[in-house]
């Protein structure tokens, strides 16, 4: 059930009303029940995986708090990751070994996200950073809180558990803020991402008929599409949580304004990058173990990060491209240099923008063969008609115009937010009522009247 579906919005309105009027002691029960209900709309057998993982990590968390045996804890982590491994990676690994066998046909919704959240909790408990949660309802809600379950953000126990343990009444300001974020997210997902996705799909479906310019532009546009899609989702998820009086982790901080790849990974999918830094990069030794080892550690993290997104070589290559550039930047001290001076900043931004977007090609491609072929077609396309014939039709042209408008809006919003060091909702709140209303009406009506919100439209990151 997508956040922009009518059934979700109707159920959410009823739930937030109940959360608002019921005594505070019922809040967690209501939210937990809503989480289970939300997850049940998918495959019921997948709910079993979530419940099982929840029960297992709840009890092993209590054990890990007292028993500090490394071997036992390693075993606990292996078992916790096993559903993710079985569902997502086993078939792929068998395929690499030449065995064509599909273990499970479909992936449980959000399995990569809730597995990582549970593993993060266990590690924090083992390290003594947080106390093991004794109340199973609280822990269950921590894992199954519905705004985060589809595609994160991956919330830490430090952030989420205290809010669950000490539930508070939602203020009208929080409601309003949450709804504004939801409207912003709706605009990004349903209008911007959907229009852009239409254009990108057209090009990716016929690279052999397309000019170099359009082929290259489609890769860059895919960069926007995925940003709108995932940031749109995150805004809606955080907006929902805000309406329920819960604050969730940030996931984006204007990533396309980054002046280095290092900077980009501090601004893109922040909750996942943080997870990898805390629970993989530092335990591997981080950067305090010699230049060579630190570089290897970084490459390991990015290879795992790539594979986290999907069991395919394309994701691995995508992760490694980012990793290699990050290592180079580290060695050349590029991150600190790019921050100084306008000219350096500009070239830093340009290089980052090109590298990040070129790497998206592997993220978007169905397989390595397609990615390589697409890259070759960019060279071949120089001889083809500049505007592909399949574009000279009304719908593609309208979608292209919408995409151009969306790009302009996003650049304006991102630069404005970065300059003001504030978010869009806060900036708009400071404006005159007429401007405020106009902005939100447009933000709401553009996706509702011109967006795609049918069953065919899903979040890209919900596949992971």
């Amino acid at each position, binding site marked *: 059930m997508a956040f922009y579906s009518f059934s979700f919005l109707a159920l959410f309105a009823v739930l937030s009303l109940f959360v608002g009027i019921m005594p505070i002691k019922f809040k967690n029960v209501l939210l937990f029940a809503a989480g289970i209900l939300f997850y049940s709309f998918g495959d019921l057998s997948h709910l079993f995986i979530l419940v099982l993982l929840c029960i297992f990590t709840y009890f092993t968390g209590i054990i890990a708090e007292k028993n500090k045996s490394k071997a036992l804890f390693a075993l606990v982590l292996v078992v916790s990751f096993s559903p993710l491994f079985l569902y997502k990676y086993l078939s792929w690994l068998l395929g690499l070994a030449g065995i064509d066998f599909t273990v499970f046909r479909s992936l449980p919704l959000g399995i990569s996200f809730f597995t990582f959240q549970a593993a993060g909790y266990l590690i924090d408990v083992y390290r003594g950073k947080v106390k093991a949660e004794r109340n199973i309802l609280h822990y269950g809600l921590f894992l199954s809180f519905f705004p985060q379950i589809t595609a994160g953000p991956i919330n830490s126990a430090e952030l989420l558990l205290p809010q669950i343990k000490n539930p508070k009444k939602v203020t009208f300001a929080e409601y309003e803020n949450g709804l504004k974020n939801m409207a912003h997210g709706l605009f990004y997902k349903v209008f911007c991402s959907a229009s852009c996705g239409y254009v990108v799909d057209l090009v990716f479906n016929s690279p052999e008929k397309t000019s170099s310019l359009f082929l290259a532009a489609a890769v860059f546009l895919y960069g926007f599409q995925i940003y709108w899609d995932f940031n749109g989702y995150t805004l809606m998820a955080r907006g929902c949580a805000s309406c329920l009086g819960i604050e969730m982790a940030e996931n984006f901080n204007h990533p396309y304004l980054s002046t280095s790849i290092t900077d980009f990974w501090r601004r893109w999918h922040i909750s996942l990058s943080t997870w990898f830094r805390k629970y993989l990069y530092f335990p591997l030794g981080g950067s305090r173990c010699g230049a060579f080892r630190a570089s290897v550690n970084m490459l390991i993290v990015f290879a795992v990060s790539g594979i986290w997104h999907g069991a395919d070589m394309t994701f691995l290559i995508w992760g490694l491209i980012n990793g290699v550039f990050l290592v180079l930047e580290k060695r050349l001290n590029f991150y600190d240099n790019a921050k100084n001076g306008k000219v350096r900043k500009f070239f830093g931004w340009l290089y980052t923008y090109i590298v990040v977007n070129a790497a998206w090609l592997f993220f978007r491609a169905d397989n390595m063969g397609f990615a390589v072929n697409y890259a070759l077609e960019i060279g071949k396309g120089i001889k083809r008609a500049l505007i592909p014939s399949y574009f000279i039709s009304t719908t593609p042209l309208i979608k292209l115009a919408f995409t151009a408008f969306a790009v302009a809006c996003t650049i304006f919003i991102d630069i404005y937010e970065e300059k003001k060091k504030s978010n869009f909702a806060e900036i708009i709140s400071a404006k005159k009522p007429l401007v405020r209303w106009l902005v939100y*009406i447009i933000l709401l009506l553009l996706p509702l*009247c011109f967006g795609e919100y049918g069953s065919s439209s899903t979040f890209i990151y919900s596949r992971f």
Partner: protein
Amino acid sequence: MKNNNSAVKFVSKIILISVIVLVFCVLGHVLYKSYAKTTNNGSYIDKMRRLEELASEDKAVFVGGSATHFGIHSKYFEEQTGIPSVNMGLNAGTSFGLYINSIKPYMKSGDVLFLMPEYGYYEEGWYNGTDNNVEFLLYYSPETIKRTPVMTLVKYLPTALTVGLKNFGFYFQDNIRKRISKNKVYLRSSSNEYGDMVIHENLPPAEFVNSVYDFEKFPFVDELEKSIKEFEDMGVKVYLLFPPLNKSSFEQSEKCANSIYERLCKDNVNVLYEPGVSAYDDDKFFDTVYHLSFSQGEEFTDMIAEKFASDNK
């Protein structure tokens, strides 16, 4: 007190936004309603008018999706058999249930009803196709609302809201499209007075891709058979037809098509021919694997007329 003020302010804002959204929804329906009548789906109004005119006569009625709209030449059928005919085929995006509900009041003993559900219908439920169904009920056949189950109508309510909003957008996009698009096939004026698609008679064919049907369950069949029984009880002779499909799609869908055929035969449905009979070469199609070219449509109709005649000797 302060909290009460915030509550009133908050609720007022929500109500105001809801009203604005609702206004745009209504505006979308109002603007699109007149525009909808010029679209291909708008030809249903003409088809209904002809059906109404023939209400008291013994007639042949063809019902289905766009494969019927393109593939059946009811005018030709009328010339061949002498039975006044009407082509009610339109668009498989609208549920078969609604088409059946819309024609029911005009059917009587002595009529012949040819049902040609698209293959896709068999996989779906009787009332599937929410966006199209709402448009059908609101713009093209509002009388059908009376014969649609209340629970189905309730299910359509949220869709009516989103369709209104989407149509506000479509109204502007389609107006632009109408000004610059060269495609004049899918308009109300593309059909003749019998409801047959005729505009493509002299148009070159377009590129199309195969459609494969490989489902194993047919939830549609139970409702279909129930409906056939109702018509037969009224004294209407009902025939089931299989839609045209290009051969390469058919080869990949044959198992599914034959399973449907076997099930219908087992249940004693009056099927006029086997599914393979309406599988034709690619060059016999216009712009999809189930929209026959004009000339092949005539041949297809001829085949139906012949089989119908031999069945009624």
